[in-house]
């Protein structure tokens, strides 16, 4: 329960803070949250230090074997205390650093969210939960760095941070998945106990690689060190909290946590040590040459993280203890140094070391605190940094085996030590001494007391740990190291004095040489003359990003979404391949036409006529009206073919649809350009021709082959049951309105919707464009004569549809064309009978009602019933409920056709409103 509170409290606080307006209230809430967490952790201290592991678990994803477990042991406790403790101090600091900024509540919300995420990483008892919170820390860090967006530095920093840590997060996901599989469970306790199994697994190298990618990206180790310097664009409280003490330590935490599982192998030793050593030296040297105050501190953080990584890479128990110790120490002095740097920046208005000089005069209190902290960073005796540096030097000297690393380690340690002293000296000297300040935007003075208080607290801690380490830090350190080792704790001593030995000599040498190097570099301010150094690796990163983005643009442009011809060609090609490959691939016998079979002569004539017109249509492609007429002729040929093949219903439908379509297209052609854009190059034309021939010919061949097969088909059943099951002798109509009535329902919906779209798109004007038809009285008179007959014929066709060729669709088309004629004759679409939308709604409603009627009776939708009632005058007539459905179809067809044609005839002109 306590664990759950610790984890959830910062998130609840973050959500509340996002809504607050007042800075004071936000500060109070955020501070209270941090303090409560700290208090809860303090409560658990005794139990945890004694070696207990507290756990609480909730089942979450049983299918994956994942449960939401929270687990705290001494190592997690240590990190959690760091997170919440430094968090509380940073909140206090930020209150004064960002005094007056109205975004303060949002800032605190993000800080609390980050705290929650970091606590989640530390307290996670399940690998998946760990990966989840890891990603959340990346996200929170991104948002905090981007806090000052759209400032360019903030944007670039945030981008770099997210790209690198995001990549790490993804690598961690892969590592977690593979690790879970290798260990047999995602539960952390199980995984930690399965060390030997994991190390023996064939996937171990992959797991290690992905794991180290995640760790190195988050902790800014080589080759990912560049993002930390860019991240200095964040507000200083963020740098003090995330980028010195907590976020970057997440990778270290992971290394320590999984040391029992993944560590101890040669691969671990070489990979981790090498990366750590390179980072240690790289960061140290880079820090000396920085001109940005925060940049110096950033690179020194990188260097110290490299130190800790190197220690973990050494893989000896004492080295692990030293690593844990340095984590604590580094967090304390680095956070205070960042805060001090923030104070200087806040007071002076600039962070440039070349301009900020002689601050000791203006802010002696801050200066003394900063000097003590910098001394701790350099490894001056009587401070905590000295103790952990000593342990580091001791480990480097004591390293055995693994030549040549063992030989180079002490040398590297010495160099790094010297560099550390050099940049610490630079920090102290160049900021607080070294003459008078140059061109400062503001006159500096001492900051408010409460702003310096957090720095003081941390510096005090540095001093206390440095002077009397065992009472202060002995117990938690031992417990945490024990937890990290997963085994027995080695013997070590935190005493200040071990006698005159190697490490002491190295420390002394490092101090002297570091100061010396700095003095040499600063002679005649030569250091200041050096041009601004480029953060190493960042340029390559930006170049990579730019290349990727450019290739993205090129790829996208290649897609050519605007070129319809190309898209159609690709589609046609895909279809040709999909169908052609199996057919030509073998095992398929093509059926050749058998010329001995009797083919009716009429059929041949119709086929030839149709083919001639089809080819003529392609050749007349620049005269749209001609093409249309030729296609009409092709349609006529098809209708005749249907009639010849004993499908009168289809023939009738084809004829009517032909008329309506030609009418529609003629009206639409007014608005279309006459010529299609020409294709110039011969190569392209040949290619398109080839694809077209393959597609069209292939389709023809497919149709031929498919029609030659005569398997037992569902149509046999439908033909057999049309009369007995559905009460109609016109099997086509029965199929349309009964067997597959649901398809028809869908199709009339499509028709209705299409008409609505065209109407809405074209018919913008409310008044009819043409007035009442002027002049001749012939057309209106003829229409008045013919219309009733047309309606009669339509009704006749509809009524007989179920048993003879006809049906709702054909009748609807006929009626529609008549209505259109009426509308044209009367000159506007306000013709009394043409209220198309009503027809549509009525038709759809009728179709739905007919289907729903069977629902009410307990049968599925669209079940039809039929009978032969005897009516007084007409005698016995076959009546089927599907006739009502057909009526709905009729209404929809009328409405849609009228809408379409009238929209094209009377719609607004292009370009006119």
């Amino acid at each position: 329960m306590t664990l759950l509170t610790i984890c959830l409290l910062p998130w609840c606080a973050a959500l509340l803070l996002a809504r607050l307006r007042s800075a004071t209230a936000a500060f109070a809430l955020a501070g209270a949250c941090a303090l409560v967490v700290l208090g809860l952790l303090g409560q658990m201290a005794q139990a945890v230090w004694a070696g207990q592991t507290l756990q609480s678990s909730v089942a979450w994803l049983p299918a994956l074997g994942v449960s939401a477990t929270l687990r705290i042991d001494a190592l997690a406790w240590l990190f959690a205390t760091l997170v919440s403790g430094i968090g509380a101090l940073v909140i206090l600091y930020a209150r004064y650093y960002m005094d007056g900024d109205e975004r303060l509540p949002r800032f605190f919300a993000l800080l609390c969210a980050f705290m929650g995420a970091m606590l989640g990483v530390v307290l996670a008892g399940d690998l998946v939960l760990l990966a989840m919170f890891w990603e959340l820390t990346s996200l929170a860090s991104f948002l905090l760095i981007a806090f000052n967006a759209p400032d360019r530095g903030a944007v670039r920093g945030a981008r770099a941070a997210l790209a690198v840590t995001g990549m790490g997060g993804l690598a961690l996901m892969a590592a977690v998945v593979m690790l879970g599989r290798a260990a047999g469970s995602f539960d952390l306790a199980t995984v930690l106990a399965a060390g030997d199994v994991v190390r023996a697994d064939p996937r171990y190298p992959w797991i290690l690689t992905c794991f180290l990618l995640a760790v190195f990206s988050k902790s800014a180790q080589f080759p990912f060190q560049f993002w930390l310097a860019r991240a200095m664009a964040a507000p200083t409280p963020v740098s003090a909290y995330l980028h010195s003490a907590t976020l970057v330590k997440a990778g270290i935490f992971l290394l320590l946590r999984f040391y029992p599982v993944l560590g101890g192998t040669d691969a671990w030793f070489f990979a981790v040590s090498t990366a750590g050593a390179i980072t240690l030296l790289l960061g140290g040297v880079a820090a000396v040459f920085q001109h940005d105050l925060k940049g110096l501190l950033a690179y020194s953080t990188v260097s110290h993280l490299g130190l800790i990584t190197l220690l973990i890479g050494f893989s000896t128990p004492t080295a692990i203890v030293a690593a844990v110790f340095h984590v604590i120490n580094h967090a304390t002095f680095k956070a205070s140094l960042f805060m001090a740097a923030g104070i200087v920046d806040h007071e002076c208005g600039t962070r440039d070391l070349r301009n900020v000089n002689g601050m000791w005069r203006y802010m002696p209190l801050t200066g003394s605190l900063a000097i003590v902290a910098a001394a701790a960073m350099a490894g001056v005796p009587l401070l905590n940094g000295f103790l952990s540096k000593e342990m580091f030097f001791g480990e480097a000297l004591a390293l055995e085996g693994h030549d040549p690393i063992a030989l180079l380690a002490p040398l590297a340690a010495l160099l790094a030590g010297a560099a550390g002293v050099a940049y610490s000296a630079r920090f102290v000297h160049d900021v607080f001494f070294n003459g008078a300040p140059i061109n400062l935007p503001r006159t500096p003075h001492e900051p408010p007391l409460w702003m310096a208080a957090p720095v003081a607290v941390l510096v005090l801690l540095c001093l206390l740990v440095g002077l009397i380490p065992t009472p202060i830090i002995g117990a938690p350190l031992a417990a945490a190291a024990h937890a990290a080792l997963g085994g027995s704790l080695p013997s070590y001593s935190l005493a200040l004095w071990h006698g005159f030995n190697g490490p002491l000599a190295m420390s002394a040498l490092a101090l002297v040489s570091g100061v010396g190097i700095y003095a040499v570099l600063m002679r005649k301010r030569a250091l200041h003359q050096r041009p601004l150094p480029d953060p190493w690796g960042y340029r390559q990163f930006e170049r990579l990003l730019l290349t990727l983005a450019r290739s993205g643009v090129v790829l996208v442009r290649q897609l050519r979404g605007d070129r319809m011809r190309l898209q159609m060609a690709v589609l046609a090609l895909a279809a040709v391949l999909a169908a052609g490959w199996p057919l030509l691939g073998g095992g398929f016998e093509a059926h050749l036409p058998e010329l001995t079979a009797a083919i009716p002569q009429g059929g041949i004539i119709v086929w030839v006529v149709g083919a001639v017109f089809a080819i003529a249509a392609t050749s007349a492609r620049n005269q749209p009206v001609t093409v249309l007429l030729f296609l009409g002729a092709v349609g006529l040929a098809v209708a005749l073919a249907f009639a010849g093949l004993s499908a009168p219903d289809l023939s009738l439908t084809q004829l009517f649809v032909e008329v309506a379509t030609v009418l529609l297209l003629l009206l639409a052609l007014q608005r279309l350009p006459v010529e299609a854009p020409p294709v110039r190059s011969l190569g392209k034309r040949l290619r398109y021709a080839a694809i077209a021939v393959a597609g069209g010919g292939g389709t023809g061949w497919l149709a031929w082959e498919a029609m030659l097969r005569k398997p037992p088909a569902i149509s046999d059943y439908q033909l057999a049951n049309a009369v007995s099951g559905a009460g109609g002798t016109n099997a086509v109509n029965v199929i349309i309105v009964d067997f597959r009535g649901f398809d028809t329902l869908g199709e009339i919906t499509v028709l209705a919707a299409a008409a609505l779209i065209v109407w809405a798109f074209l018919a913008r004007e409310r008044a009819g464009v043409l007035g009442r038809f002027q002049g001749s009285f012939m057309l209106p008179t003829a229409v008045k004569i013919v219309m009733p007959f047309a309606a009669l014929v339509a009704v006749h066709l509809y009524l007989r549809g179920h048993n003879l060729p006809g049906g709702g669709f054909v009748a609807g088309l006929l009626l529609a064309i008549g209505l259109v004629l009426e509308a044209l004759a009367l000159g506007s679409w306000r013709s009394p009978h043409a209220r198309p939308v009503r027809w549509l709604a009525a038709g759809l409603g009728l179709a739905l009602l007919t289907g729903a009627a069977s629902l009410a009776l307990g049968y599925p939708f669209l079940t039809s019933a039929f009978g032969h009632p005897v009516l007084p005058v007409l005698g016995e007539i076959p009546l089927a409920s599907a006739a009502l459905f057909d009526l709905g179809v009729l209404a929809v067809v009328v409405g849609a056709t009228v809408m379409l044609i009238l929209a094209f005839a009377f719609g607004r002109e292009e370009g006119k409103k």
Partner: protein
Amino acid sequence: MTVGSVLQVHLAVLPILLPLLTATLALAWPRASRPISLLGALAVLAASMALVLQAAGGVQTVYLLGNWQAPFGIALMADHVSAWALLATAWVLFGVLVFSIGGAQDEGAFFHPLFHVLWMGVNGAFLTADVFNLFVFFEVMLVGSYGLALQGASGGAVGASLRYVAINLAGSALFLIAAGVLYGVSGTLSFADLAVRLPQLPAADRPLAVAGVGLLSVVFLLKAAALPLSAWLPQTYGRIAPVSAAAFTLLTKLGAYGLLRLMTLWGGALGDWPLAGIVLACGAGTLLLAGFGALASLSLTQVATWSVLSSSGFLMLVFASASPQAAAAGLLYLPASAVCASALFLVADLQRRNCLGASRLWLLAAAAGVAGLPPFATFIAKLQALDGVLASPVLAWMALVILLGGLLSVVGLARVGLRVSNRGGKASLSEQLALAWLCGGALLLSVCAGPAQRYVSEAVTQMATPDAYIQAVLGQAPMRSVP
């Protein structure tokens, strides 16, 4: 014969009928179209939820339309996957509808009828168990989408919409050809019956059947915007109104769903023709292309478009992989990614109208959901997919593709997200509610991940045994009398 029992018996067809009813009523009474539309949407949402609950009970509901036995009539099949997809559709479309009403973007002509026609088409496509019926519902869905794409369109948007119409008409023609070939060679149109008959065809006819199935898969690949048929998606979704694009995020999922059904039901009939391999390659290519596209994006709409493409590629990749764990992850990913992508489009709409000022939290939520960051269900789905894929060394390369594509998308999203300014007015309450509904859906799925994962695992097991499907559909007897 109470209303309740009628509803329960006919539950499977309600998600198709209710939107049609709503559209008809909205057409008949245009003044009252808003309340009609909202009520109808709620009803469809309720029906979809009820179907999921029914399916979770282990029932494969088969509904025979017209009371004709399959394969002679049309059957609907509401099993685990269909019901799940229905719920995802309902969730997304409900949110988009509330948003449109809230932002007064539904005042275009016939917006509500066309919206519900789209809904009807998508539901029908997910529920149907018949090839030609699938074609019909594809048409219904497409025509609804044409209408939405043309809402309030002018200039470039009109051209983009018309090109969208053109390419889909070609796709529909291809669908008809495929259906014709399949019918000609086997004599039936029902999925289940085809699954029975295709393997029984004489060897001489088998290549023809494979050709038909191949054509059908080309149609589905077009719908899912798989490489190399992806060109239409960016140019359409990037230029039409973002609200319409938000409603379209599910349409690509239809293609992936179709491919899944095809591969599971008719896999046996295909013999050694490597449909799964082709889908796998297309999916991987699409995923990477989408990553690069996201990196090259300059606006929220563009990045949202590429995220839709990325999710489509991911789905194809996991559905075609032979790992049931990954397929289950894909099913989990389907609703989560659709919801988050829609939310992102809606946020882009807010930005376009300069209403984003105070609501940048939604941008964060939508972007995080799309990118696969916790706590949204997309993260869990990606993790599960990795788990499934890394279990066998043959499939391990897919993990790299998934992670690389994910990284590119994240960086692209970050780049665009950083450019969004925080000036502007406030979004209306309904719009914020709609965004909360959508993002909350992804969160809810994450919290209830346990039951959800159980459901999708059952779904995958069900799909892996097509015999149950075939038995259920072909064995369903017509209703004899009033129950």
